[in-house]
């Protein structure tokens, strides 16, 4: 059977950072991804990232993905398995993989789950019509494969993803009819909102989609205003002729592998759904199974990279590769970085979610 010291599932920013950190201590790492190249969702992020200049802020996601992929290729301790899905993790530390060659077991001493997140669906009549796409799908289609999703788009959701994808749609030559936001305020960063407002795209707060219609595929959408109890207000309907409805209504962690590995999972709405309990080393309640990135709670790439680094460091430490003082010092450095990244007003929701999670973790250990 093929063996590795650390198996990392998911080669996005979290998984790659974890793999590189562990590999820097000589740990033999196998990095697994469903896609054929490393980078995760960075490969479709054409915008520039915020964060510290010293840590590459201002770099476009696509450029960062290239850099990370090169580091992976050049690292002799990391083996990349592309076009491979992790099917399950068993108590004898065997990870079952579906590779292009067939089903293969992989014996691993430690496992890092960095599987990311998937898009949330929204309930409305017609939501299953072709032409209703996740925002990530729209980004993949246009920024990775160079295909426009349609001619005219209604964006549902004004978080950063909804705002950024709206801007990217215009860059690709697609009209954005409007951005809807159910809340009374815009969900994403103000600079992203300002960027699309000056392109003439309306952001309608307190609005939602009532229905999508069309013969076999989307031909339009009816939108309406919401009252303070989130109910649509009859008489406020507007008809928008669009051929694409793009859902940017949030993400939920992809935790199947963690459930299956026996990690204790908790529902924390601020973190996007079910997330594993984990300790200050990013280790879950399933011994030897670590978590990082959106799988541990939906945030964004810079926190995912810091969490991945922490999980990789911890995995290497638990394998006896990191001197204790160095481990403690580096762990505090990364935790401080995470703290600063979440210190602004937009990080408050995440901090509330993490607090809920840590309270439940204490209950488990008590």
């Amino acid at each position, binding site marked *: 059977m093929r063996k590795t010291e650390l198996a990392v599932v998911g080669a996005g920013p979290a998984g790659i950072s974890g793999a590189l950190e562990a590999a820097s201590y000589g740990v033999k790492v196998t990095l697994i991804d469903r896609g054929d190249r490393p980078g995760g969702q960075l490969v479709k992020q054409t915008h520039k990232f915020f964060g510290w200049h010293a840590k590459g802020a201002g770099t476009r996601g696509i450029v960062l993905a290239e850099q990370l992929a090169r580091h992976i290729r050049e690292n002799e301790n990391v083996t990349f398995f592309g076009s491979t899905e992790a099917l399950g993790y068993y108590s004898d530390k065997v990870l079952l993989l579906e590779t292009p060659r067939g089903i293969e077991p992989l014996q691993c001493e430690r496992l890092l789950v960095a599987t990311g997140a998937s898009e949330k669906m929204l309930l409305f009549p017609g939501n299953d019509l072709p032409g209703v796409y996740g925002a990530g799908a729209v980004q993949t289609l246009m920024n990775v494969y160079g295909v426009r999703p349609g001619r005219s788009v209604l964006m549902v959701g004004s978080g950063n993803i909804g705002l950024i994808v709206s801007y990217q749609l215009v860059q690709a030559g697609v009209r954005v009819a409007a951005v809807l936001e159910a809340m009374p305020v815009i969900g994403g960063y103000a600079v992203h909102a300002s960027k699309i407002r000056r*392109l003439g795209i309306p952001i309608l707060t307190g609005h939602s989609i009532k229905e999508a219609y069309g013969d076999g595929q989307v031909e339009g959408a009816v939108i309406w205003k919401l009252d303070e109890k989130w109910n649509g207000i009859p008489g406020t309907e507007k008809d928008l002729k669009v051929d694409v409805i793009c859902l940017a209504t949030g993400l939920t962690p992809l935790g199947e592998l963690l459930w299956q590995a026996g990690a204790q999972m908790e529902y924390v709405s601020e973190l996007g759904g079910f997330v594993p309990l984990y300790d200050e080393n990013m280790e879950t309640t399933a011994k030897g199974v670590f978590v990082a990135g959106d799988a541990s709670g939906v945030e964004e790439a810079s926190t995912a990279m810091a969490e991945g680094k922490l999980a990789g460091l911890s995995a290497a430490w638990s394998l006896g590769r990191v001197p204790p003082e160095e481990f403690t010092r580096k762990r505090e450095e990364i935790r401080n970085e995470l703290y600063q990244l979440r210190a602004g007003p937009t990080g408050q929701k995440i901090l509330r979610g993490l607090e809920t999670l840590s309270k439940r973790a204490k209950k488990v250990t008590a």
Partner: protein
Amino acid sequence: MSDEGLLVTGIPTSEELARVTPPRERREKGPCVMIECFQRIPCDPCHYSCRFGAIKEFEDINDVPEVDWDKCTGCGMCIAACPGLAIFVVDESTGNEECRIAMPYEFVPLPEKGERVRLFDRAGTEVGTGVVERVIPGQKPQGTPVVWVRAPKELSLVARHLAVNREG
């Protein structure tokens, strides 16, 4: 101008804009930066992009940028560095009727020098036209192109987007 609030409309209020607008005397002296970044978010590349030390160092990564207009030369290096595309340069030193505005422009086609372009305000409303004075193309894929336009003076604090109009 809407004053409902930045987080409702996506458009800064007049009070918010007043805080980041260079004083008139400064604008009439020559080009200077206007950083339309009002929200505490973890981001600092603008400070490092300025070789004149005009954008003060961040104590906390979430601080909003603070400009020393005496040090700012209006070079516009920070425009392409800002991940939020929130930085503009304005210059009212060119005469009574005209001003110059520099803005980021990540669209195709890029305008050409001498070309007349349509100008838009922060709500995307067309407010007039300007003539392109200079285009600094960005290197793909990382770069952000910056376009300098000459516009009617009253648009220096108003026009924040442009569109190339080659058909019809």
